[in-house]
């Protein structure tokens, strides 16, 4: 018998491929609900974090983007949350931002995912950086390296100017998208 005939080579690889694919199909079926639940849970937590006292959240699609409208216990709309992403220093950064489109004011921001350097860029997740945007108006922000003296200034994290800049740009972009969907006053 010819041991290394082409037929045998093809058959071997095909068999391994089919078995692998079969196994992974089961693993995929098994893990997908958990993965989706994790993502939904992370998103829910982020929305709760960026919209104060939110009781109910409704998904609304506008201009091809998905917005999360938050309502309080009395059914009053308190604000809109929007998830935006963009490039950071090492990879994509995903930020949830909660705003009040009525008064063009940011409530809070929350970083969902990032791959920034631990100890440096990763500090965009800490409240010291996030507080730069709390209760601030819509508009363009300047990243500065000294303690901010004006309202539209954001203090960069020491040693992580690029991460700070990226996060700020993602937030500005999100504000623009919210503005065009909800027709703010600016």
């Amino acid at each position, binding site marked *: 018998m010819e041991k*290394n005939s082409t037929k045998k080579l093809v058959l*071997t690889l095909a068999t*391994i491929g089919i078995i692998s694919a079969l*196994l992974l199909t089961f693993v995929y079926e098994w*893990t997908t609900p*958990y993965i989706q639940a*994790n993502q939904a849970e*992370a998103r829910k937590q982020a929305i709760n974090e960026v919209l104060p006292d939110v009781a109910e959240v409704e998904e609304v699609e506008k201009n091809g983007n998905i917005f999360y409208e938050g309502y309080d216990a009395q059914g009053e709309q308190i604000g809109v949350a929007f998830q935006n992403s963009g490039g950071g220093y090492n990879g994509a950064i995903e930020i949830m931002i909660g705003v009040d489109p009525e008064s063009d004011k940011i409530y809070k921001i929350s970083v969902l995912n990032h791959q920034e350097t*631990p*100890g440096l860029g990763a500090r965009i997740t800490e409240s010291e950086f996030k507080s730069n945007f709390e209760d601030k108006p819509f508009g363009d922000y300047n990243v500065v390296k000294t303690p901010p003296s004006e309202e539209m200034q954001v203090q960069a994290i020491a040693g992580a100017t690029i991460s700070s800049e990226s996060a700020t740009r993602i937030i500005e972009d999100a504000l623009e998208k919210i503005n065009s969907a909800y027709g703010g006053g600016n």
Partner: protein
Amino acid sequence: MSLDFKQIVSDFKNGLWAENPIIRLVIGMCPTLAVTNTSANGLAMGLATSFVLIMSEIVISLIKKLIPANVRIPSYILIIATFVTFTDYFLKAFFPGIAASLSIFIPLIVVNCLILGRQEAFASKHSTPRAIADGIGMGLGFTWVLTLLGMIREFFGMGSMFGVQLLGEWYRPMVIMVLPAGAFITLGILVGIMNQISREGK
């Protein structure tokens, strides 16, 4: 095929020190340098790689006679990739925190030359029990060095260990240690120390 217990123990010990993948064979450098910026990342990466290594060694040592020599490398890669994808899904589903911090480096385990290297050098030539011993030994050898690297880098770079802050406000973190350059410096010093220790042992 008789089971030689002594042989199995020596196969297992081999990976821990004498042929430690990182400090002796110097293979699998990509994850070693890239994800050891914190202790937890180093440990998680080591365990994920160990799992893939052990499972692939088991499967390949079992079916080694069925695989024609000409297609053995693609066959190994297919088997390794299957276990890596499994690990990727598994971590994302049950350990989302670890999956997020290791991100792209989990799928990249496929191309870790430690894993392919052990299939070619060991699993394809030895019995399954010996392959299991080799997989566990090599896996643990890889894990302890990765964890140690992560601990050293996190300690100097952030003043903490496994996320627990050890040094107070007075400590000014050596930022370079959590950056890629810190990985090269730490690994170089570590390999030097290990070489010295094993030389003195002779």
